[in-house]
């Protein structure tokens, strides 16, 4: 499921939750296939966001970050293999990992 603003509604999206009006009455029920035109009408009814089926966009981004996290961890574990039992090296590993991860996210 993903929560989207009504003006981002695209044709063919499927509602994951009922859309209710201000008084709680169901305007559109779960499972309805919606269109961008319907999205505009929802806006007129005072609805700002709806929940549709599908993956959240940010999940996609998070996934990309986690791939680079994994890559970073693998790369560093290769370089550090056999030395992380040493407490100083462990400390350096952790600090460098967090620093580099932080840098990657900034970029």
């Amino acid at each position, binding site marked *: 499921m993903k929560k989207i603003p009504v003006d981002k509604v695209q044709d063919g999206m499927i509602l994951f939750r009922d859309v209710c009006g201000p008084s709680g009455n169901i305007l559109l029920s779960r499972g309805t296939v919606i269109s961008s035109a319907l999205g505009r009408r929802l806006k007129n009814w005072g609805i700002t966001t709806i929940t549709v089926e599908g993956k959240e966009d940010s999940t996609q981004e998070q996934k990309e970050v986690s791939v680079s996290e994994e890559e970073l961890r693998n790369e560093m574990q290769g*370089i550090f293999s056999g030395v992380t039992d040493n407490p100083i090296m462990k400390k350096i590993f952790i600090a460098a990992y*967090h620093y580099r991860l932080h840098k990657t996210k900034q970029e």
Partner: protein
Amino acid sequence: MQQKKQIRQSLELISSIPTLPVVIEKLTRLLQNPQTSAEEIGKAITTDQALASKVLKLVNSAFYGFPGKISTITHAIVILGFSTVKNVVLTASIFDAFRKKGTGIEGFDLEHFWLHSIACGAAAQSIAKITGSNQKEECFIAGLVHDIGKIILCQHLPEEFHEAYVFAKENSILFFQSENALFDVTHQEIGGFLAERWNLPKDLQNAVKFHHAPSPTRDYYMMTAIVHCADILIRALNYGNGGDMKIPVMSDNVWKNLGMDSIPLSQLFEAINDEIEKASIFLQIT
């Protein structure tokens, strides 16, 4: 066990080992005399025009961070001091002696090598700063040249270099461990030999020779310790590549003596990163 290849002698016999410009020796002599004036030093440097112009580019870069334009060597000496200018000349000369000669061997890119060296210099400088050493500039040079023996090996005995490189990779060991297993000499010794020939200051010579085995009982321990620490941190941060994909274990003694436990590493990493950005000028002027 397989017999180690004897390469020490052949390296010592190479006559084409790079030399530093005569101006360095002249400067060292001039600087020993307290009566020497800025003009005299300026004159000595400007006898080598190419070098003088590089020195001016460097002193006007963000690396030295001086506001306003320095247009003559004499002006640079007045503003930055004798010792800084000498260090700039030394650094520019070392670069001149080695840069743009060959492209390395398969898998070993010289650009990556220099990036590792510059980063190590920048890290050594940052560590010197944060630990209160008064040898920041010297530490930069020490970090810059700590692996110079690898370049000598790569340029003069490329087959042996390749052998050591592949052996390190296949066995997942450090480059010097690979050299130790295959040859009668390591890049630390080769670099130390060059530093001696160049008459570099003794603390710099020792930093090159012992960066993988710093010992507090040896002279000039602090600079060696700083370069040892810088090399390891730079490998952890993965700037450039010195010829292997491993990291040496930090000496407990170095860690303790530099007081690294009380230094916030993230802050040091940030300082190193800033310093590397500024030091990248060295890759642009040569």
